[in-house]
């Protein structure tokens, strides 16, 4: 329901936004990628994750997410730091991701109860993000170069892009469709299709606000019909351009969390 108001809200927010001339599908996707994952030089948010399973049973998680773009033009490598506040038994657990464009990402986790820092060499980015319906890739962003993009249609508010993987055996979807808002370039909906052409997974941006000049998704959800249920992420205390030191995104800080950014 809320989603019906999104285009209007986005348009009002972004009234002064760039007016695109004829853009190619690739250009649209690149801009959307930057709008969704690269706002500012760095950023921070408190995240409330609510996982609702197919039976309506809910689990809540709270964590702080820090992000820093690698220097250089937008759309390049990034570093992420994630620190758990709740539930209590995973408090102080931390994750770190170094996102690379041309190679597999590096991932680490710190498990305080085992006093253990572990590198996770995942086979792909499409494993569950801490038990939710989100994949790691949904949090850190799928590299646009991994898919071929085609502009299916333009509505009054959206570009509708169809993306097909270049390496189909590496992913579980056959293709996905993206609705990208024309003025803000925020992707507001993605639908993932299986080999039989059925939609099984849906991402939706539920609420967008302009924070410090950046259009920011502050509520988003993913549902998955194969396992049932959905996960909602709510972002609060969003801040951009905090000048987060690069040193924060190292193994040392997994064990010694940077308190100044976590409250």
């Amino acid at each position, binding site marked *: 329901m809320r989603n019906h108001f999104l285009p209007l809200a986005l348009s009002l927010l972004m009234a002064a936004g760039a007016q695109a001339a004829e853009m190619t599908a690739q250009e649209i996707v690149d801009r959307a990628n930057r709008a969704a994952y690269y706002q500012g030089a760095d950023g921070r948010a408190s995240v409330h994750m609510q996982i609702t399973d197919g*039976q309506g049973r809910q689990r*809540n998680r709270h964590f702080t997410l820090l992000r820093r773009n690698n220097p250089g033009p937008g759309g390049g490598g990034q570093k992420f730091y994630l620190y758990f506040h*709740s539930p209590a*038994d995973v408090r102080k657990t931390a994750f770190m991701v170094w996102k690379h464009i041309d190679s597999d990402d590096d991932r680490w986790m710190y498990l305080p*109860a*085992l006093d*253990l820092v572990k590198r996770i060499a995942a086979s792909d980015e499409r*494993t569950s993000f*801490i*038990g939710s319906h989100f994949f790691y890739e949904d949090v850190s962003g799928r590299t646009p170069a991994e898919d071929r993009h085609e502009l299916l249609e333009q509505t009054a508010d959206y570009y509708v892009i169809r993306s097909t993987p270049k390496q189909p055996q590496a992913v579980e979807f056959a293709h996905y469709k993206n609705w990208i808002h024309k003025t803000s370039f925020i992707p507001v909906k993605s639908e993932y299709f299986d080999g039989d052409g059925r939609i099984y997974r849906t991402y939706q941006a539920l609420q967008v606000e302009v924070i410090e000049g950046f259009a920011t998704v502050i509520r988003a959800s993913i549902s998955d019909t194969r396992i049932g249920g959905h996960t909602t992420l709510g972002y609060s205390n969003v801040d951009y351009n905090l000048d987060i030191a690069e040193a924060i995104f190292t193994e040392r800080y997994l064990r010694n969390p940077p308190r100044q950014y976590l409250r």
Partner: protein
Amino acid sequence: MLALSEYTAARPRIGFIISGLLSLLIIALVAAPSLKPETFQFLHPVHIDTDPENMLPADEPVRVFHNAMKQQFGLYDMVVVGVVNRRHPQGVFNVDSLGHVYQLATYAQQLRWEEQGRQRGVVAIDMIAPSSVDYIEQAGLGAVRFDWLMSRPPRSEDEALAVADRAMRIPFLNDTLVSRDKKAVALYIPIVSKSDSYRVAQRLREKIATFDSADEYHITGLPVAQDQFGVEMFKQMAISAPLAMLLIFVLMWWFFRHLQLVLAPLIVALIAVIVTMGLLVISGNTIHIMSSMIPIFIMPIAVLDAVHILSDFFDRYPALRDRKATLRAVMTELSAPMLFTSITTCAGFASLAFTPIPPVQVFGVFVALGVLLAWLLTITLIPAYIMLLPEASLSGFGMQASASRHTPMGRLLQCVGNITFRHGKLILLATVLLSAAAVYGMQQIRINDNPVKWFDQQHSIRVADSALNERFGGTYMAYLALSPPPAAGTDLEAELPVRLADLQPACRQPLMRQIDTLPAAADADPLAQLIEFALAQQWAAAGDSGWQCWQSATAVLEQMQQQRALFKQPQVLRYVAGLQAHLDSTGLVGKSNGLPDIVKTVHRDLLLGAEPEFRIPDTVAAVAQTLITYQSSHRPQDLWHFVTPDYRNSNLWIQLKSGDNRDMSALVAAVDDYIAANPPPVALQHDWFGLTYINVIWQDKMVSGMLQAFLGSFAIVLVMMVLLFRSLWWGLLSMLPLTVTIAAIYGLIGLIGKDYDMPVAVLSALSLGLAIDYAIHFLARSRYLHAASGGWEQGIKAVFGEPARAISRNVIVIGVGFLPLLAAPLVPYQTVGVFISAILVFAGAASLLILPAILSLFENLFFDTREQPPCETTSCR
């Protein structure tokens, strides 16, 4: 009753017209909704039900619990595909075989369709196949990796073997996905509904047929077995039952040598079966394993009375040479015994209506109905049929009683009669010895059943069953649910104020107000909601003091939540692991899977894969962090098959190699004993579910229910006999052959080690019904002939004339007629075939030996020389 026979004999066509029209009407009422369900929605179509679960009513607590647990843990029934390769040194772990396994798994995941808006077929996400499961392993210094076990078909023999090696390290996969000899693989394909299994299995078979390989594919699992049973059941209804009918017909023809005449019992049996089965379907009952056997039970009983009439007619006609006069004499002598035998048979089957098992109730009621119908048809149609035959066609029929006496059977029976008269004591002694052996045998009876063993040993289902259970942990699933007792931990409202007492008022008061607003709904987790509330306050707090106050509030609430999350506590997990180890040591369990296995595996691989680290870590937080690591895999949802997200309920998957009820019962007892001797560290209750367990419950109900039903009908029949003979002694005497027969049959079952299972239990009702028949006929006619011939020494000669021949013909016709059931590929049918024949022989022999022996020994007790001939023979007319 006699009047009814005379009425129809006078108007022979009317009975045929009525019963013919009735049969046609019933066939139409069944065919219409079955062939055109849309047009005839108000009628019930034929509905086949092969689900042993339906042996219990849908609202039976064990079934309700089973379904609730399946829902709670997201469990589905599974089609199991075992792949075996006996030629390749690496078994199926070679490039070729795994390539096919990969193809089959990919194909299976797409076996989905929609039916009435519901997704049906395979639950792809929960499939267990090399290409669809995750494994965890060391990936270089300080790194772990989650990856698909077999993300693509292997390209070399080494790669293929590596798939097996990796899987063997994961307890959940070892012995489940990969056989313990590392040679075979099994795919577990969950399906939305059991009724989808046949379609899924068929499609898999088609796909497998396209592979050119040396691999053996075995498809099994309880749902497949059940569906297969339905298919075979239909075949049996179409083949075995008519074949039995045909053999009975041929035997009757051989005895009576008159084709047209012996058609009559056939027609009676056919109409009785059509009308009974038709009424079963029309009344909305399903054709279940039990009800599919109704025709087989009705047929011998329907033919029974007709054989008595024909036999008597056969022996008398040559003397009288007049159909009408012969019929009158025959019906005069037989109508009362036939009525009573039918009523007693009815009582025997109707008593099954009091068992607690719906399919058995339906079976009992409809067989009783069929028996009454057969009786009515026999006494009306058989005389009518004889009257319809031209007198000329009977010219050569029958033989003089004297001639009949000189057939081998006639001579043998006369001889038997002499022996019983002279050596009664010997016969009684033999009976006592036999009974003693029977009592001993009955004590050896082993109560056991196993739906997979309803298939013949050579059947592909049985072959698959043994191939898989030889190599893997077991294909029979039972589940043990562990949960806190209902009372524990619900008194949150009392606990909260105490626990929050130390907080500063600034956050305690808003929190207490919040508690009052919480919904009372049982399924809502109030603690989780309070934690969310406190956390929101914490983040919104302006100053440090507010932050700290709410932080401590959150901490108290979270601590409470942790204490309630039983299955994150190390001591509870260790206890469960101990229980699992005990299960494995019983020899009954092939393998068990549980939450402790997941925790131990991930913990080991987090700590460099060292075997000593294959253990439950020491703190709640360490367990929780191990589990959150696990949830970063491709299949985090697998966790919820073993524990609920609040960690208050857990579930052990137990694989048994045998689906025998007695093995399951032994396991239940072993777990009870273990838990009694080793109480859990927190209050936990344990409850079983799963199809293997449900089978035990319905068997228990059936055994006790059948015993009660049998004792009840025994008492009813005894009372009826006492009333019929107007004598306690005659009543008791008439019960003797069936008592000996049943004791002998069940003694035999105990001695030969045949399991007392569902069909065997039902046979007690059949024994009661058939054995009493012979006794009634024998005794009623002994009394009649004793009076007619003026003494027992003369009487017994007459009794061993026509009456004994009728009984013997019955025994042979029906006993032999049921032997074709032995060729059926379904064991319950074989059992019924063998035991019907055995019961008939025993009951016939018991009636012809024991009854005359006792009558001879205690002539004065049973025959009052002043007594008038009893009512049911001549004086009632």
